[in-house]
């Protein structure tokens, strides 16, 4: 039987990749964020996942506005990163797990979700940076990937309630998978931040704390707010918390927080790093 070893959540601010690239982890600006990672490294070395199911959002690398899926499940055998147009380093690619991808797709559709299936999919910094942070010194990623994309770009976005339900359906599929994999669930992005408009630079530590205090024990509490209200509370890009909510659903019914680091600002963003184990 496959085992879900836990969940890892972190922000994916592009400049984190730049800081890693330029060796700035101990720089005073960056240190409070990077100091959140030794516990992640120790935990991953202990639980040794070999598959990662990752909820993230594309930022205009794989999807454009010509076709914008609300939910997209990768079902490829390989996933490459590519030039995002703004000078980010090019990141390592991933090996996929198409059998598990299709099992998840089967489960989602049986549960009346309608995901787009992608046998070819580029993955952007939202996916690569959390892995660069988690596995800083590897030549290739020690996990196979199942990426699940959520539209956080073009409104209407799926509700928080719908994202939690999607995650719970993924959990059901993982629980019925007959393989012997060790699966880590990952949610990326957030927390509060806003890049656009006169309110650029908005962060909200109170709302972030509410999310972090409830995500493990009562994730439904995060689904009471409409998307518009989440934008008001978390900022236009803070809606990436939807990735966290879906990933929390995929972890399973009960969770226990084993690590939390919160620091603002990283670039324009309130950054957080969290680990949960099933409880």
């Amino acid at each position, binding site marked *: 039987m496959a085992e879900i070893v836990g969940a890892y959540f972190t922000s994916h601010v592009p*400049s984190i990749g730049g800081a890693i690239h330029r060796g700035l982890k101990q720089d005073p600006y960056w240190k409070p964020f990077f100091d959140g990672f030794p516990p992640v490294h120790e935990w991953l070395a202990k639980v040794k996942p070999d598959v990662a199911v990752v909820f993230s959002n594309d*930022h*205009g*690398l794989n999807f*454009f*506005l010509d076709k*914008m899926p609300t939910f997209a499940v990768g079902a490829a055998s390989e996933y490459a990163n*590519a*030039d*995002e*147009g*703004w*000078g980010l380093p090019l990141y390592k690619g991933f090996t996929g797990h198409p059998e598990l991808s299709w099992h998840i797709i089967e489960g989602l559709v049986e549960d009346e979700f309608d995901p787009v299936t992608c046998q070819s999919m580029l993955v952007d910094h939202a996916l690569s940076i959390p892995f660069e942070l988690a596995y800083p010194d590897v030549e290739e990623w020690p996990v196979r990937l199942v990426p699940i994309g959520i539209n956080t*770009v*073009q*409104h*209407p976005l799926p509700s928080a309630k719908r994202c939690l339900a999607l995650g719970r359906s993924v959990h059901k599929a993982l629980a019925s998978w007959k393989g012997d994999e060790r699966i880590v669930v990952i949610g990326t992005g957030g927390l509060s931040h*806003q*890049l*656009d*408009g*006169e*309110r*650029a*630079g*908005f*962060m*909200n*530590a109170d709302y972030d704390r509410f999310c972090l205090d409830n995500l493990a024990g009562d994730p439904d509490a995060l689904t009471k707010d*409409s998307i*518009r*209200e989440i*934008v*008001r509370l978390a900022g*236009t*890009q803070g809606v990436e918390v939807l990735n966290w909510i879906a990933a929390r659903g995929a972890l399973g019914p009960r969770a226990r927080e084993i690590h939390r680091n919160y*620091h*603002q*600002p990283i*670039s*324009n963003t*309130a950054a957080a790093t969290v680990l949960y184990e099933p409880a």
Partner: protein
Amino acid sequence: MPSDLEPIPGTTLFDGEAARKGYALNALCFSFNEKANRDAFLADEAAYLARFNLTPEQHEAVAQRDVLGMIAAGGNIYYLAKLAGICSLNVQDVGSMQTGVSVDKFKAMLLAQGRGETYEAAHKEMLNG
């Protein structure tokens, strides 16, 4: 929920209306994923822009590097960031352009929130300081 209907100050939701209006502008920015297109833009901006069916409003906003104008014309920040990258602007530069203060003041506003100030307090100081 009545508060849900209240506008969010300084915030534009990128919805269907914006996505329709901004399609050409966002297509321009999406094209910058290719280095050859970035080089073509830098070599002859007017000629490159002419390949896209921009509205006069979008064309003017790009020419003036007017970020709020681009957003009003349907630009989405994730795509606009690619244009900003070509112009060697990071998100603090873009924040400064949208709030009308210096980059240093914009960064100070972010750091003030990091010290525990609310956005409202930090923002007020940024505008008055």
